């Protein structure tokens, strides 16, 4: 029967000892333990938050870098393109210049050739004139005897000279 009935002595001891155990542990143990645990929880929380923030920042930096690289690439492409265009243009210009130069040279030489030819023809004409005068002189000297043959000879010569 005593198994199921509370005994006053143990009741008193239990109340006194348990309450003093609670008060002592509360003051000297739980306060420090719970405080430290909460502090650590706070630290872990803030560390995690910081890591999250850092990660976001890193991502942002990376995005920025990529943007910069992309921009640089575009710039480079542009510069290369421009350089190519300039080179092409220079080439074309050089070509044009060369062709116009050569045309000019050709023209000039053609002109010179023409003048030379004209000069030559004039020379030839003067030479022919001199030659014809000489021939005429010879003929005249020979043809002092024969007037008719003289005349035919002259006209023959003249027509030949005209063909020349």
């Amino acid at each position, binding site marked *: 029967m*005593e198994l199921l009935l509370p005994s006053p002595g143990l009741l008193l001891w239990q109340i006194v000892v348990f309450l003093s155990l609670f008060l002592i*542990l509360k003051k000297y143990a739980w306060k420090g333990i719970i405080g430290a645990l909460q502090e650590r929880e706070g630290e872990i929380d803030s560390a995690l938050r910081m890591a999250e923030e850092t990660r976001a920042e890193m991502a942002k930096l990376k995005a920025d870098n990529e943007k910069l690289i992309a921009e640089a690439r575009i710039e480079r492409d542009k510069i290369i393109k421009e350089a190519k265009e300039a080179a092409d243009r220079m080439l074309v210009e050089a070509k044009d210049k060369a062709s116009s130069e050569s045309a000019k040279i050709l023209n000039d030489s053609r002109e010179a050739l023409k003048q030379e030819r004209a000069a030559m023809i004039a020379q030839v004409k003067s030479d022919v004139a001199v030659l014809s005068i000489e021939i005429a002189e010879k003929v005249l000297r020979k043809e002092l005897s024969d007037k008719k043959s003289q005349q035919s000879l002259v006209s023959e010569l003249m027509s030949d000279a005209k063909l020349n």
Partner: protein
Amino acid sequence: MFKHILLILSLSVLSIFTAYSQHDESHENHGAKTEEHVEEKFNMGEMIMHHITDEHGWEFTHSLKLPLPVILISEGKLAVFSSARFDENKGVYNGFKLDHHHIYKVNEAGEVDHHTKVWDLSITKNVASLLLSTVILLSIFFAVAKGYTTNKGKAPKGIQSFFEPVIVFIKDEVVKPNVGPKYQRYLPYLLTLFFFILVNNLMGLLPGAANLTGNITVTLVLAFLTFIIVHFSANKHYWLHLVAPTGVPPVMYPLFWIIEFIGVLMKPASLCIRLFANITGGHIIILSLLGLIFVFKSFVIGAGVGVFTLFMSGIEIMVAFIQAFIFTLLTSMYIGSAIEEHHEADHGH
């Protein structure tokens, strides 16, 4: 959870063996001539009761008994002496008689005086065990708390890292979700409660130890403290719910008062009985299993019982944890329901 079934089984087994041993006694009387000495009759019920109840002095085994101080207050006078005096003088000493763990006043003629009240504040086996567990708890948690100051900002070490997960589990899984946002105020009490019950449950499983958490006085105190805390911290919603439950016509209020009154008392009563009966039941099962060895005095039975006792002891260790957990959990739930803040929206009629 099979415990009560096993308890009933063992109780019935116990009564069968009582009958069996009585039957055996007549046999022994016939064959007693061969016995050289008269062995002390083994009474399993008595053995079990002796182990699960309180006593003056701490008996580890036969003839190895630690005497403990007996403190008595009778007729306004204080008497303090060692419990060994009772054992030496066949239970009568200094005008007091120890009879079945109760101390009575005896007069000159040696007759028990039942009218004089004797307040027995002795350091009994259970009180000694209580003090021992208090010392253990204090040294453990002082060491743990010291760990937090010396290892500040570092990883926990030694005993600190052993207890930290348990403390965190009680804090985050038991107290915080059940008590609610104001859990900080009740956390020290609930942690003390959990570790007190756990350490005493486990200590009770040691051979020769006292059955402290299987003592109804101890569980009654714990349950009563829960009751006090719940009702001293209860807010007006809790009382309003008790006095004037919503959605009930006022005519029915008296009926509900009776029901609520029983409910309010049943909560701590069930806490008290649950812990007491679980721990005592576990002890009775293990003791009746071990008692079988002395009843049968057979090697085969002894070996079988030994294996089964080992299994039951394993279950008892689990029960020690579960009961400490359940007691703390239910206490936090009761506190949580008493301090719960109701929003105005919840009161829609």
